[in-house]
């Protein structure tokens, strides 16, 4: 045959080269007829697999396929995308999965969406009858909760809901406009935000229950509180609706928010509810960096997805720059969120046997790790559709726990709680590190699905830091550790704060209860002022003298133990003091008649009980005004003269 061995590519496997002009098929046939040859095959050329749709503006969808193309004036980095074109080699969606968009509505007539809009199978269009008995008449394509009508048409000034819907499932490969992550899917339009993009929790909750009751597997929630970075109170109704979705096997994909907030410090709802059917999403740009506007959260925001300059459908005829358009570019975590919803739907139709938790964990386990997201999301990565479809979850280590928190209870117990984000862990290890110890040590091993632990084997020492983390494990190994929950036992605050007050100084005394303070910090304010630090002491001090006071002034003091290492203690109970007026220096101005004999003293006797109140009134009332001081001086001068005159008469 003239073939020569070029190289060994495995035990007994040879890559052979044929002479130029050889008949490959004939050589193959000869090899295959040779009993010493197990098999023979051509060495096929391969290329990176990729399915590209015919949608005319697909090239503007950098989030789906980033070749470094310029979109909205920005040329990104090739490969900084969700890799969906490679996923499409495996699956493009089959219309079996319903994704509810709880949003501003959807233009269900949009030519790039209409074929993928959900239709209520139990409702007859236009017969004015509530055929399915759900309390809603002719809810053929969803419901408008904002207006309580059966028309969920998007009327938003930006076409927000239609944009979200297009990212999830604009009809793919139809030679028109854009492609959704799913070429075929069922989008359930649930409108609860008005034309200005605002709505309320009640309607959002009602929309979620509608989605649950009508077969949605995924709810896309690209909405949040309009408040910026404040300590928001979570809605119980919203949390219960999402928890009900979880019990029904429905995932809720929620936007992390667009205010650059740290969701660990200022939770953003619904993304920040600690429920394991929520997938909270931050946004990345075309360089795989966290978008400049995106909220983040190392413990609670699960992953990131493209959300800057995202090109998608908008309601038809939307006027942008004075011309009507059917497509537009919008940025926000609202756009990153449907990328994730889309991949979850794609995966759900590709692997219909996966539970909601498995879908979620598969997507989280298959992210592309990015250093730019290391402290920004729990998965530390960006969505990857291709990896999600190819991941075999049972052969993976578990995904790490989130939302870990620690609370000190009494003097010898710390309670931990966390969110179990894994569906196939065999258990959890609880690990602890105290103070400056270099490493974590394993405390305990817990059963699968554990989400809490009480560490009662600990003596809480003032000023020490107690760090905890949990590690899920299974036969394939350990998950990455959860984030750390830290409890720092504060310094003991001083107590027994007392004072010794003079007109020009205040001496403060307290009881030193701390064993670990570096000193004490003394703060002072006046009636309407803020506390300002006026001095510090060395460790173990028990008094401080404030020389900076004025007479006749009310002051408030706080004293706290301080430490650079563990922070300051609480303040001792506030102490109020009132400095007296300056001492009286009233003298007779008559050199002939010296002395300060007083009419009251002469009349009542030096030890009469009425004199102390009179002196108090003199010092604390009369002495506090100019007129009073003149009266006092006049009194002393006149009374001395009167007494001498009376004595002379007598």
């Amino acid at each position, binding site marked *: 045959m003239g073939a020569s061995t070029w190289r060994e590519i495995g035990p007994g496997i040879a890559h052979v080269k044929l002479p130029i002009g050889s008949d490959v098929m004939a050589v193959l046939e000869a090899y295959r007829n040779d009993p010493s040859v197990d098999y023979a095959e051509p060495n096929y050329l391969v290329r990176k697999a990729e399915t590209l749709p015919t949608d005319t503006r697909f090239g503007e969808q950098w989030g789906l396929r980033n070749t470094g193309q310029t979109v*909205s004036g920005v040329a990104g980095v090739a490969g900084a995308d969700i890799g969906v074109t490679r996923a499409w080699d495996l699956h493009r969606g089959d219309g079996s999965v319903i994704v509810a968009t709880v*949003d*501003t509505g959807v233009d269900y007539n949009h030519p790039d969406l209409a074929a993928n809009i959900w239709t209520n199978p139990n409702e007859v269009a236009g017969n004015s009858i509530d055929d399915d008995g759900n*309390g809603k008449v002719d809810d053929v394509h969803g419901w408008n909760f904002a207006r*309580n009508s059966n028309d969920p048409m998007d009327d*938003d000034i*930006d076409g*927000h809901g239609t*944009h979200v819907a297009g990212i999830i499932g604009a009809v793919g490969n139809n030679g028109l406009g854009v492609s959704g992550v799913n070429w075929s899917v069922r989008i359930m339009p649930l409108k609860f*935000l008005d034309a200005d*993009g*605002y*709505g*309320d*929790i*009640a309607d*959002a*909750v*009602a929309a*979620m*229950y*509608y989605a649950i*009751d009508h077969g949605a597997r995924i709810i896309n929630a*690209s*909405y*949040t*509180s*309009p*408040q*910026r*970075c*404040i*300590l928001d*109170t979570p*809605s*119980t*109704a919203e949390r*219960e*609706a999402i928890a009900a979705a979880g019990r029904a096997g429905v995932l809720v994909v929620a*936007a992390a*928010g*667009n*205010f*650059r*907030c740290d969701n660990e410090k*200022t939770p953003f709802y619904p993304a920040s509810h600690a429920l394991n059917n929520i997938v909270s999403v931050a946004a990345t740009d075309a360089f795989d960096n966290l978008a*400049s*506007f995106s909220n983040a959260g190392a413990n609670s925001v699960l992953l990131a997805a493209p959300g*800057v*300059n995202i090109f998608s459908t908008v309601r038809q005829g939307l006027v*942008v*720059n004075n011309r009507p358009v059917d497509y*537009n*570019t*919008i*940025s*926000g*975590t*609202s*756009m990153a969120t449907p990328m994730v919803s889309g991949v979850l739907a794609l995966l759900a139709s590709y692997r219909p046997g996966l539970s909601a938790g498995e879908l979620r964990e598969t997507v989280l386990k298959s992210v592309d790790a990015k250093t730019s997201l290391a402290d920004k999301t729990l998965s530390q990565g960006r969505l990857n559709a291709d990896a999600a479809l190819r991941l075999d979850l049972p052969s993976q280590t578990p995904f790490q726990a989130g939302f870990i928190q620690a609370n000190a209870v009494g003097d010898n117990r710390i309670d931990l709680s966390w969110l179990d984000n894994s569906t196939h862990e065999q258990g959890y290890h609880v690990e602890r590190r105290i103070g400056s110890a270099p490493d974590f040590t394993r405390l305990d091993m817990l059963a699968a699905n554990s989400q809490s632990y009480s560490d009662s084997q600990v003596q809480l020492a003032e000023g020490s830091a107690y760090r905890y983390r949990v590690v899920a494990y299974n036969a394939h190994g350990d998950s990455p550790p959860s984030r750390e929950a830290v409890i720092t036992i504060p310094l003991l605050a001083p107590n027994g704060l007392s004072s010794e007050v003079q007109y020009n100084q205040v001496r403060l005394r307290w009881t030193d209860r701390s064993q670990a303070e570096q000193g004490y910090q003394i703060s002072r304010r006046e009636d309407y002022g803020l506390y300002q630090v006026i001095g510090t002491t060395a460790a173990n001090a028990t008094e401080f003298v404030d020389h900076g006071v004025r007479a006749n002034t009310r002051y408030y003091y706080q004293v706290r133990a301080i430490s650079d290492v563990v922070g300051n203690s609480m303040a001792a109970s506030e102490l109020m003091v009132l400095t007296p007026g300056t001492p009286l220096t009233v003298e007779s101005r008559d050199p002939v008649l010296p002395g300060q004999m007083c009419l009251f003293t002469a009349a009542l006797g030096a030890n009469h009980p009425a004199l102390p109140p009179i002196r108090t009134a003199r010092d604390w009332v009369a002495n506090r005004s100019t007129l009073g001081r003149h009266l006092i001086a006049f009194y002393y001068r006149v009374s001395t003269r009167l007494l001498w005159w009376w004595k002379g008469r007598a």
Partner: protein
Amino acid sequence: MIRRTPLAGLWLVSLLAGTASACGQTDTENHTPQSNGIIVQCASELTPTQCDQALARHHVEVVKSLGRPGLFLVTQPKGKSVTELVDALRSDPALKYAEPNRRVGR
């Protein structure tokens, strides 16, 4: 929850002017949520009639049902603040929870 590209410049200006201070800090002050009625959930063991009676005790009227038995958006009667009404509803053992119906946005 969107960023409009045509307004990117404006957004950048507002970001420089205000967002940094607004988002970089934690505002711990209590804020009064904008309310558009009250969301109430009757206790699960109540019959619909008992739930109606419980709501009537607080002089509230149902605006709409929210998709689950006993879960309603109710009106805020005149003369009562949101806080007063929510406190009263929460102290009623016939009701599982009550909260102001707050605004949200895209």
